C-alpha cells in the first residue's frame, strides 16, 4: 500500500468498559459522530471526526474490553478493529488508551497486552478526581515512565485536559513511537542498550532509546551501515539485537499472573496510599439502603413506577401534538391534490399517515432513553441489575434484562434498543426476541374496545379491570417458557460469565444524556422511518386498488335504500351511502380479497373475513386495527375505541347463517391474538437493525404469529365445547 500525503489518519480509543471511554470520545468529537455496524455482526462502530491542532483525524470508539483474549464474537471484532484486520477499515495510526486511575491495577492488565501490538499509543488517565477522593496520590510522571508512553490527565465531562490530550496526540502522530514496557518481574537488564546509545552519541548520532529498540528489531541495515567505519559498533548492534529479541520471545509466553504482577508493580509505584484511608464510602452507605432486601425492592419499584408513569404522562401531550400536526398537514395537502384522487390518497393516507404513525413513538423513545441514560449515569442501573439477576437468571436471561423488558410495556422499539445494556450477546438476543411479547401501549385500544363491548356490560367494571390486567400479563407469562426453550434449543452461542461493576454513585453527565437521546432518536427516525413509510404505501395500495366502480355502487345503494322505503336525500343518506361505497371498495380491493381467501384459515379461531381483513391490515402497525375494523364493519374510517357505533355494530354482527359473530370467547381469542401477534413493522425493523440480520425479525414474526394463531384457535374451540 502506498501512503499518500493527504490520507486521513485514524485514531482509536481503547480501554476497559466503564473507564470513561465514551465520555472522552464525546468530548473529543462532540456531535460529529456516526453510528454504524461492523459488517455481519451486532457490534456498533461509533466513529467521529477529531479536530487536532494540525489536522482533522478519523476517530473510532472501540467497544470496551477487559483483555485481548477474545471470547465472544463481539470482542473478536473489537480486537480485529484495533489490529486493523477488518476489511474496509483502516488500521489505527495511534491508540488512545483510556486508563481509569481509580482502578489502575486492573486497567493496566489490558494495557500490558495492547502495548505489545506495536501501535503508537497515548494514555488518557480518567477518574483522577475519584483517586483524590480516595485520598491517594498519583504520580503521573512516574506512570508515564513505567508505561513508556505519554500520559495526560483528562476529565472528559468538564473538558479538562482535552486540549492537552489533542496536542499530545498530534505530537505522537508526528513522531511515532511504540510503548515499551518491562513485563517480567526481574526487569531485564538494558545496560547493553544504554551503552550502545552512548557510543552512538559519541559518533554524533543521537538516537532515542525507543527508536534504537525499534532498530534493534531489524538490525541488518544499521549493521551494514556501521560495518565499514565502526566495526565494534556493528558487533554491539548484532549482540544487542539478539538480546532484545530474546526478551521479546520471553514476553510472548507471559501468563495472566505475570501481567498482574507487573500491573501491581506499576500501580504501587504510581499511586501512593494515604496513611489514613477513609472509612466507609458514601457509595457503600447509599448501597446499604438501595440493595437492602426490603427497602431496595421498594425503592426499585418506586423508581420504575416513576419512569413508566413519566413515559405515559409526558409523552401523551407531545404524541397528541404530533398526531394533530400530521392531521393538519393532511388537511392542508388534501385540497391541493384534489385533481388527482389517487395521488391525493397516496400522499394523505399513505405517506403523511404512515410517517405520522411512526413519528408518534418518538417522544416515548426519547423519554425512555433519557431515563436510561440518567439511571446508567448515576450508577443505579448496575444496582438494579445486581438485585434482579437472580429473578431473571434461572431461565437464561440476566439482571440486565429487566430494563428492556419493562420498557417494552410502553413500546417494544425502545425495549429492543435498550437491550444494548446487555453485554452478553446470547442473553441480549433472547431479550430482543421476547421483548415484542410484552403488551405495548398500542395494544391498549384493542383491549379497551373489546373489554368495553363484551366484558364490562356483563360483568361490571371490576372484572373489566381484572381482564385488562390479565391481558398485560399474558405476554410476560408466555415469554418465560419461550426464553427457556430459546436458550436450550436455538441460541447455542457461548455463554459468558455474568460480570458486573457497581460504579460509585455520581451525578449524571447531562451532555452525555442529551447526546444519547439525540443519537438514538436520529437512528430511530432514519431506520424505522424508511421501512414504515414503504409498508404504509404498500398497505394503502392493497386497500386502494383495484378501484371499484364508485358510480355503480352509489346507484346500487340508492336502489336498496329506496326499496327499504327511505328517501334518497339528506345527511343520513349521504353518510350511509359513503360507508357503503367504502365497504364495497375494501371488499373488492386486493386486501379484502386476500381476507376472503384467508378466511377459512381463521374460521377455527372464530374470525370471519372482516376480522381477518382487519388483522391483515394491522400487520404493519397494530394501531391500524381500530380504523380498519371501522371501515370493515361499515362505519367509515373515522372511529376510535370510544365509538359506540362500532361497539353496537360489533355486538350485532353475525355470520351469514345468523349466529352472532362475537361471543365472549371470540372476543378473548381476538384480544389474545393481538397480545401475542407480531403486528408492528417498526419493531421488526428495530430487530433487524439491532441484530444486523433478517433472520431474527423473520423468526420473531413467524413464532409470534404462529403462537397467536394457535392460542386463539384453542380458546375458540374450548369456548365452543364449554358453551355447547
Amino acid at each position, binding site marked *: 500500500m502506498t501512503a499518500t500525503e493527504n490520507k486521513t489518519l485514524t485514531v482509536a480509543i481503547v480501554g476497559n468498559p466503564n473507564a470513561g471511554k465514551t465520555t472522552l470520545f464525546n468530548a473529543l468529537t462532540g456531535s460529529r459522530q456516526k453510528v454504524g455496524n461492523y459488517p455481519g455482526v451486532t457490534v456498533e462502530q461509533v466513529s467521529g471526526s477529531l479536530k487536532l491542532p494540525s489536522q482533522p483525524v478519523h476517530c473510532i470508539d472501540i467497544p470496551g474490553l477487559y483483555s485481548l483474549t477474545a*471470547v465472544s464474537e463481539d470482542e473478536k471484532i473489537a480486537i480485529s478493529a484495533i489490529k486493523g484486520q477488518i476489511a474496509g477499515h483502516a488500521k489505527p495510526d495511534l491508540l488512545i488508551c483510556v486508563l481509569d486511575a481509580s482502578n489502575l491495577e486492573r486497567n493496566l492488565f489490558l494495557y500490558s497486552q495492547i502495548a505489545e501490538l506495536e501501535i503508537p499509543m497515548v494514555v488518557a488517565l480518567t477518574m483522577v478526581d475519584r483517586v483524590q477522593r480516595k485520598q491517594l496520590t498519583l504520580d503521573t510522571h512516574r506512570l508515564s515512565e513505567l508505561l513508556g508512553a505519554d500520559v495526560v490527565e483528562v476529565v472528559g465531562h468538564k473538558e479538562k485536559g482535552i486540549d492537552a490530550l489533542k496536542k499530545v496526540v498530534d505530537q505522537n502522530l508526528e513522531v511515532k513511537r511504540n510503548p515499551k514496557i518491562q513485563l517480567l518481574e526481574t526487569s531485564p537488564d538494558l545496560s547493553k542498550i544504554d551503552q550502545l546509545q552512548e557510543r552512538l552519541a559519541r559518533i554524533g548520532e543521537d538516537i532515542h532509546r525507543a527508536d534504537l529498540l525499534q532498530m534493534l528489531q531489524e538490525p541488518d541495515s544499521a549493521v551494514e551501515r556501521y560495518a565499514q567505519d565502526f566495526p565494534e559498533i556493528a558487533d554491539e548492534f548484532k549482540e544487542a539485537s539478539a538480546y532484545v529479541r530474546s526478551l521479546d520471545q520471553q514476553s510472548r509466553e507471559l501468563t495472566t*499472573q505475570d501481567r*498482574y504482577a507487573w500491573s501491581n508493580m506499576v500501580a504501587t509505584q504510581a499511586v501512593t496510599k494515604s496513611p489514613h484511608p477513609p472509612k466507609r464510602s458514601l457509595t457503600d452507605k447509599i448501597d446499604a439502603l438501595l440493595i437492602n432486601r426490603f427497602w431496595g425492592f421498594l425503592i426499585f419499584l418506586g423508581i420504575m413506577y416513576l419512569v413508566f408513569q413519566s413515559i405515559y404522562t409526558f409523552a401523551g401531550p407531545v404524541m397528541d401534538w404530533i398526531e394533530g400536526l400530521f392531521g393538519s398537514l393532511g388537511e392542508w395537502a388534501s385540497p391541493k391534490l384534489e385533481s388527482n384522487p389517487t395521488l391525493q390518497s397516496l400522499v394523505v393516507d399513505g405517506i403523511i399517515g404512515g410517517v405520522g404513525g411512526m413519528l408518534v413513538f418518538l417522544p416515548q423513545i426519547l423519554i425512555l432513553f433519557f431515563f436510561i441514560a440518567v439511571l446508567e449515569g448515576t450508577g443505579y442501573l448496575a444496582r438494579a441489575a445486581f438485585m434482579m439477576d437472580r429473578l431473571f437468571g434461572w431461565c437464561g436471561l440476566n439482571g440486565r434484562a429487566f430494563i428492556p423488558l419493562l420498557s417494552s410495556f410502553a413500546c417494544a422499539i425502545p425495549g429492543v434498543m435498550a437491550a444494548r445494556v446487555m453485554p452478553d450477546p446470547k442473553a441480549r438476543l433472547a431479550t430482543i426476541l421476547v421483548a415484542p411479547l410484552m403488551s405495548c401501549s398500542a395494544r391498549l385500544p384493542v383491549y379497551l374496545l373489546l373489554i368495553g363491548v363484551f366484558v364490562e356490560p356483563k360483568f361490571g367494571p371490576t372484572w373489566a379491570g381484572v381482564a385488562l390486567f390479565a391481558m398485560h400479563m399474558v405476554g410476560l407469562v408466555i415469554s418465560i417458557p419461550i426464553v427457556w426453550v430459546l436458550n436450550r434449543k436455538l441460541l447455542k452461542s457461548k455463554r459468558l460469565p455474568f460480570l458486573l461493576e457497581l460504579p460509585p454513585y455520581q451525578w449524571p453527565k447531562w451532555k452525555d444524556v442529551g447526546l444519547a437521546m439525540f443519537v438514538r432518536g436520529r437512528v430511530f427516525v432514519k431506520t424505522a422511518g424508511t421501512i414504515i413509510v414503504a409498508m404504509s404505501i404498500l398497505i394503502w395500495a392493497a386497500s386502494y386498488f383495484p378501484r371499484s366502480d364508485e358510480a355503480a355502487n352509489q346507484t346500487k345503494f340508492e336502489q336498496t335504500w329506496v326499496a327499504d322505503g327511505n328517501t334518497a336525500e339528506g345527511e343520513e343518506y349521504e353518510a350511509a351511502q359513503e360507508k357503503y361505497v367504502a365497504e364495497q371498495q375494501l371488499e373488492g380491493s386486493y386486501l379484502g380479497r386476500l381476507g376472503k381467501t384467508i378466511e377459512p384459515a381463521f374460521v377455527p379461531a372464530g374470525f370471519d373475513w372482516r376480522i381477518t381483513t382487519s388483522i391483515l391490515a394491522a400487520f404493519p402497525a397494530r394501531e391500524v386495527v381500530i380504523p380498519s375494523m371501522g371501515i370493515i364493519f361499515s362505519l367509515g374510517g373515522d372511529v376510535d375505541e370510544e365509538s359506540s357505533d362500532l361497539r353496537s355494530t360489533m355486538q350485532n354482527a353475525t355470520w351469514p347463517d345468523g349466529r352472532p359473530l362475537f361471543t365472549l370467547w371470540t372476543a378473548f381469542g381476538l384480544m389474545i391474538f393481538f397480545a401475542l401477534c407480531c403486528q408492528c413493522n417498526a419493531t421488526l425493523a428495530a430487530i433487524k437493525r439491532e441484530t444486523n440480520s433478517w433472520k431474527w425479525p423473520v423468526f420473531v414474526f413467524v413464532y409470534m404469529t404462529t403462537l397467536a394463531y394457535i392460542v386463539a384457535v384453542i380458546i375458540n374451540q374450548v369456548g365452543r365445547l364449554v358453551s355447547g
Partner: protein
Amino acid sequence: MPVANGAIMTFSDLKQGMNVRVVSVDSALEECRRLEEMGLTAGTSFRVAKVAPFGDPIEIDLRGYRLCLRKGETTGFVLEKLD
C-alpha cells in the same frame, strides 16, 4: 496482615464481609480464565463487599476495585479463609 486460618472453601461458601485468598484456579475452564483476566489470579486476596438480596450475585473487593459475579458460575476456584 491477614493470615490464613487454614479453612479451604469455594465461592458458594462466601458470606458478606469475609476475607479470602485464591489458592488455585483451574485455568482449563474458560470462565476461570476470564476471571483471572479480571484480576482473580492465584494468590490474590479479596473481601466480600456485598451480597445481593437473593444471595447471588456477590460483589468482591480486589486489587483496589469492585467486581460482581455469580457464585454459581464460579466453579474451579479453591479459596482459603483469612482472619
